[in-house]
């Protein structure tokens, strides 16, 4: 028996009773920071979508009614962006056959010069109709008639198959579009015995999507536009994968690390959810079983993870966005209620507890990692009487604890510290009174170009509540030497002549150790 249809509830109340129960249900689900306004919204949604509720009630389809309730309960702050320049851009690029990233960026530049830069956030409810919701739910239920659907629980179905959208794109009938793909016809899919093989089958056919590091559409766009543009970053490709996989009833999510623990940038990937566990794959790249998140090649330094988040459709009550006051400063990366921390489903983690004293009355503190140029927030913790706990943090990573006052200002709460593989912690309390000789052979650990180059001008810095210079000097050999470097310090070398990549390191046993 399909898990999805277990525990079917027959509701025999009249329509007004349904409204009442739905309001109560939504009210219970909306216990968040702004709970009362949420319940008001819930009432509005129930009125607005009374037609859909009535249809499933009258049809005595309790499961679809439950699915509708799930959507309505999580409709708050679902939005897309609308602007004249976005429309003009979309129209212009859809007329180009397989546009290059240069063409796309060029079009965007030229259109932005013509149109006003205004962009409006539009609530989904302004375009969502009863008909749309019913069609989406009906199509989602149609998509779970495959062999692999028997393994999908109703909870996973609601979160990872049912949603009418994946990010902040304008609502659209994308499932029908996906089903029209020739490689997704029933005969082709008949060879797939389970969710793993079906996921691999779809992913193997995503090669029409060209991955690029340097281009993404300015906002989230729907499947229709993605098919037309056929290019984008790992985020856009993962979105395409989700559109196609979810249309086949595969419970798939986008998981991501906003910033690597030991280098710049971050990464998005797709993950098949089976029995509560994520099975990651790189969209249009290695399938489940072949994909390694940290491994990037033999003899290359693994990418370390401090945090893994999941994009959800449901509102996460424990997200920073839900817990904070509007006045609390918040790094943009956490400005969504639909972020779920799934780090402990991927890597061994530790909870980190700090006790500190500061005059600031902030309610949240942050851990930062270094992204090759600056400190980047990777997670937050609630401050409770000068004690802050950062939950489920990745190990073998160096962190800086700090307050975030606004988008440009961070106030360190003390020394950076390293959480080692076994969970032990070491505080890097710089000792400027005790000095040591320092021999530097590299400014970054990646390849030959990161070696110290004779003739280039370098500046070496150490962290002491901020970066302090040890002095700039021209390398007279393929190494830099300083005789007065502080002990127990965190260092950074900048090549002032050329190059971009920089990486923090400690100095242990006369060697650079990279973090």
């Amino acid at each position: 028996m399909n898990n999805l249809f277990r525990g079917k509830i027959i509701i025999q109340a009249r329509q007004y009773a349904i409204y009442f129960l739905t309001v109560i249900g939504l009210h219970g689900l909306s216990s968040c920071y702004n709970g009362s306004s949420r319940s008001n919204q819930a009432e509005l949604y129930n009125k607005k979508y009374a037609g859909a509720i009535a249809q499933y009630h009258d049809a005595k389809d309790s499961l679809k009614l439950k699915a509708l309730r799930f959507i309505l309960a999580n409709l708050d702050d679902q939005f897309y962006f609308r602007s004249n320049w976005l429309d003009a851009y979309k129209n212009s690029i859809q007329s180009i056959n397989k546009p290059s990233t240069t063409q796309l960026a060029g079009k965007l530049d030229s259109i932005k010069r013509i149109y006003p830069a205004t962009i409006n956030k539009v609530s989904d409810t302004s375009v969502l109709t009863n008909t749309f919701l019913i069609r989406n739910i009906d199509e989602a239920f149609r998509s779970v008639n495959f062999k692999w659907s028997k393994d999908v629980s109703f909870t996973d179905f609601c979160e990872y198959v049912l949603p009418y959208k994946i990010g902040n794109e304008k609502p659209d009938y994308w499932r029908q579009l996906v089903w029209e793909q020739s490689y997704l016809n029933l005969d082709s899919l008949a060879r797939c015995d389970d969710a793993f093989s079906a996921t691999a089958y779809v992913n193997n056919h995503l090669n029409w999507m060209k991955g690029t590091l340097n281009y993404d559409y300015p906002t989230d766009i729907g499947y229709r536009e993605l098919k037309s543009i056929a290019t984008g970053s790992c985020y856009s490709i993962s979105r395409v994968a989700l559109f196609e996989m979810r249309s086949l009833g595969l419970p798939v999510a986008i998981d991501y690390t906003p910033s690597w623990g030991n280098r710049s940038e971050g990464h998005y990937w797709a993950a098949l959810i089976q029995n509560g566990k994520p099975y990651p794959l790189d969209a249009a790249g290695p399938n489940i079983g072949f994909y390694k998140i940290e491994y990037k090649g033999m003899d290359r330094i693994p990418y370390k993870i401090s945090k893994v988040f999941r994009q959800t459709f449901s509102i996460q009550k424990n997200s920073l966005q839900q817990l904070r006051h509007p006045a609390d400063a918040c790094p943009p990366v956490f400005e969504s209620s639909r972020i779920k921390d799934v780090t402990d489903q991927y890597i061994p983690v530790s909870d980190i507890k700090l006790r500190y004293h500061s005059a600031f009355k902030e309610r949240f503190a942050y851990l930062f990692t270094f992204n090759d140029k600056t400190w980047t927030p990777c997670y937050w913790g609630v401050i409770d009487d000068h004690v802050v706990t950062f939950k489920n943090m990745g190990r073998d990573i160096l962190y800086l604890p700090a307050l975030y006052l606004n988008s440009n200002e961070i106030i360190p709460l003390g020394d950076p510290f390293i959480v080692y593989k076994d969970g032990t912690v070491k505080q890097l309390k710089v000792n400027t009174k005790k000095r040591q000789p320092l021999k530097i052979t590299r400014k970054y650990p990646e390849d030959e170009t990161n070696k110290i180059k004779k003739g280039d001008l370098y500046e070496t810095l150490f962290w002491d509540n901020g970066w302090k210079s040890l002095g700039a000097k021209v390398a007279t050999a393929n190494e830099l030497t300083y005789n007065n470097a502080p002990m127990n310090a965190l260092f950074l070398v900048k090549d002032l002549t050329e190059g971009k990549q920089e990486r923090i390191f400690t100095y242990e046993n006369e060697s650079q150790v990279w973090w």
Partner: protein
Amino acid sequence: MSRRYGGNSLKLIAFGLFAIILLIVYWFYHHEKMPDEQRYQYDKISTTNTESLRETAQDFSGKETPLPIAIDAKTNFKDYSKRFYVPNDTDIHIFAVGEAADYRTNPFLFRPWDNDGVEFFFDMQNEKNTVFDFNKGNRQYRILWKSLKVDGQNLNLKGVKFRESDPSNKTYLIDLLLPWKSLGFVTPHPGLKFGFDATIIDCDNGSEKAKIDWHNKLDDDWKATNHYGTILLIRPNEYRSDTTEGRALQRVKGHSFSELTPFYQYHHVTVGYVTDPSDLSGKFRAEWDYDNLYLQVLVTDNIKTMANALFDYGWIENPEGEMIWAMKNTGLRYAGGAKKNKFIDTCIRLKKGHYLLKYHTDESHSPAKWDDAPPDTKFYGIRITSQSKTRE
């Protein structure tokens, strides 16, 4: 009135002094806390490990045991270690199962030969300059294996031909034909000398792992032709082996390379590291006739048969941390299930002494959470037994 006024003055002065003292105390306090900037310092930091992904079943108390010994690698992200000893010199049997991948099982991994290739550098006037001079006919030819093309700097490719072949699964051979006209000479002759160097590039993972060179000692030496060696054109009967210069023997028309034509080894590692000749080594030879110069390079590179990567693997260390034996990319066999499941079943001799048996698992694919079909072997990890035990 005046007395009252005088009394108020004293009170005012006392209050003023008190206020000044307060200000001084305040200044001292803040001077200590914040001399030139805002500075905070947490006074306590602690961590608690979450157990969900951690090993629970293994005993790693550090207790030393005799053989047999096994590490049952049950979970991801784990560095296992067990101490053991062998009371006498012993032949031991090692059985290890792990995860490895190569370009055949994972098309997204680099093919082992990507960007491998050879380079030739010419200083046709044999001027041995301090620069690589385009105007003086200095030339670079580069052939990346399996790329089916020749490129380089200051090239004339008219009439240039090349061929590549695989004499064995650990070697590759490249033949290059260069018309003298393309090199700038019309009438070569016995006794002609030109500056020459030859390089082999090894990119085991798509990026440069090592370079070896015939004459240059540093990677950048090709930019100055005074680092190049010299090739002398001779007739076959003029060849003597007691020379450091290279010799190109005149080719008998219609023949290919003669057995008499000497090979020259690539002696210098100019980039990276080379563990042994099977890791990377090479030799070249040259022949000529009045139309062309012929070059041939034989490269030995065991990467051709290697897995790109080992993800879960075991090894044996001595107490000094030296690796005595390890699962390597070569010699692995298919263990059933997913193609990346590999095993090794081998015997080695261990001297009497104390050892560490180790096993590493990476982020995915272990009995705790297979991300593809598990191996047919019920065991996943490494186990060693003494040979006598095995035979029993």
